[in-house]
């Protein structure tokens, strides 16, 4: 386990939280949490429903996007509160302290709430600014079903990881989906009477944005595979990674992007009739799947046991954090919700060590303090109960 001095001497710009203030956030009316920051691990323990995950959710709002629960902004506000909420943090990147605040203001007219973001006292235009100088990664129990659910959640998982390396990725995917919706609407409403030149203009846009997104996905998957390969044969199984998509496959086989773009456009053109009757496009990056396999067993992740699936997922999330640390010089702030429960004691200890050595702060939750035995003296402990947070030792 890394001790205090070793942690602060890491080359990475450590990302950590030294103070967190929540106002009308979920179960917290007004709560402040101050951290000593002399250990990389922060452990929150407490009974079910005590509000442990709510703390992690608040921290996940220190990144762009919809937080780790993907809730609507108004659902986050405390019930029987004023309808607004705020999460503010003193966030340290290396030696620099950045004051970050986010939340919503009450919306009287029932209009959709807009997320406000303030960095060092200045209002930011949107939440993208939160992705510029630090990043936040997380693993939640909801993600345990990732390998057995439909491909859309794996695709979202993949795209969020890709975004960590390619900030332009969400714009490309967003533009692709928007143009695709236009084409679907046109085909559904006008069928074969639809203007051919209009369709082909939309298909050209789909191809351009689709290729850009597919290239970013492949590039990322290659980098992540390299990172997974480097990991020693530790307690977490080596994961094999493949992107299963028509366009990505073509590019991976060495087709030049220009030719792939043309082929995609032709395929879309040929599929207009069928796409119109299904009211969706039959081919494209919106159908891509992320295929993960257990390398030592040579077994698809969805066929592995629950515990092995969790171990694979942990391996992926760890590899991604290491990749970001290697490429950007700083590891993400990690939020690991109920991660210890499924793992046996050896893997648990190995996980704690891996997280502690990443470089940035890592928050862990669990119902029972005994899950974290062996961490005493190496982590900050907090006891959460009934919307209150109390330090409970080191």
């Amino acid at each position: 386990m890394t001790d205090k001095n070793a942690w602060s001497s890491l080359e990475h710009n450590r990302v950590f939280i030294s103070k967190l203030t929540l106002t009308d956030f979920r179960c917290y009316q007004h709560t402040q949490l101050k951290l000593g920051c002399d250990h990389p691990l922060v452990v929150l323990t407490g009974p079910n429903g005590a509000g442990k995950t709510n703390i992690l959710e608040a921290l996940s709002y220190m990144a762009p996007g919809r937080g780790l629960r993907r809730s609507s902004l108004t659902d986050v506000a405390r019930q029987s509160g004023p309808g607004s909420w705020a999460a503010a943090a003193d966030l340290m990147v290396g030696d620099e302290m950045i004051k970050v605040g986010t939340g919503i203001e009450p919306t009287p007219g029932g209009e959709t709430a807009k997320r406000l973001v303030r960095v060092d006292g200045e209002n930011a235009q949107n939440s993208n600014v939160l992705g510029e100088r630090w990043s936040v990664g997380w693993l939640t129990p909801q993600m345990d079903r990732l390998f057995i659910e439909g491909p859309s959640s794996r695709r979202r998982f993949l795209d969020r990881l890709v975004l960590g390396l390619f900030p332009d990725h969400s714009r490309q995917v967003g533009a692709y989906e928007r143009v695709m919706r236009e084409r679907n609407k046109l085909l559904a409403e006008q069928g074969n009477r639809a203007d051919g030149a209009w369709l082909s203009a939309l298909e050209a846009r789909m191809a351009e944005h689709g290729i850009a997104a597919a290239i970013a996905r492949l590039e990322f998957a290659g980098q992540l595979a390299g990172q997974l390969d480097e990991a020693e044969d530790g307690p977490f199984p080596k994961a094999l990674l493949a992107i299963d998509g028509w366009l990505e496959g073509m590019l991976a086989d060495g087709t030049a992007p220009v030719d792939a773009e043309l082929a995609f456009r032709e395929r879309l053109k040929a599929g207009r009739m069928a796409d119109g009757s299904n009211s969706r496009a039959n081919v494209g990056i919106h159908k891509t799947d992320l295929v993960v396999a257990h390398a030592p067993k040579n077994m698809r992740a969805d066929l592995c046991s629950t515990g092995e699936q969790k171990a694979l997922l942990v391996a992926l999330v760890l590899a991604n954090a290491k990749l970001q640390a290697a490429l950007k010089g700083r590891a993400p702030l990690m939020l690991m919700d109920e991660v210890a429960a499924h793992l046996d004691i050896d893997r648990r200890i190995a996980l704690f060590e891996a997280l502690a050595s990443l470089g940035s702060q890592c928050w862990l939750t669990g119902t029972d303090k005994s899950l974290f035995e062996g961490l005493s003296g190496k982590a900050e402990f907090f006891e959460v109960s009934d919307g209150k947070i109390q330090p409970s030792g080191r």
Partner: protein
Amino acid sequence: MPKSHGSDIDALIQLLAKLPGLGPRSARRSTLQLLKKRDSVMVPLAHALMNVADTVQICEVCSNIDTHNPCHVCEDVRRDRTTICVVEDVSDLWALDRSETFRGQYHVLGGTLSALDGIGPDDLTVDSLIGRVRSGEIDEVILALNATVDGQTTSHYLAEKLEEFDVKVTALAHGVPVGGELDYLDDGTLAAALRARGSVSS
């Protein structure tokens, strides 16, 4: 309701407040200024407004808005009759014309294609553009649409529609703005600028 002024003046304030860039406060200030400068500003303004309101029309050639039909741009004999610059809106035409770098004809589309908003080719002046190109006078069509997803889709659509004619179809370049610093550009713009790089002629 305060009774500092009559309802006629109030109606004037309300109307002015509907203009872009004017809120209730600036509308009150403008109204007061008009009232004080009744002879030098207010009456001439009223005349000008009536005059333009009586004569304003959409140009049947290029869909520009003007008091003449065809508009002053289309009538101007000193302008190049072989190039057409296609823009989304009249404000874009004015912006390009202010720059005084383009001396050809214009064509105002009246928007961009958007299936989600229910705007199709029939809602734009696509047919009249094709009619102008078909007449044979035109050598080049410059697509000067906004660099948005819809704008680019529309550019592509027009390029395809114009394929059958013997005209050069070009589009505005995307990239580093004049006087711009690379450090401040977003990734998408930088990528576009790199893709569209050119050789430096000596």
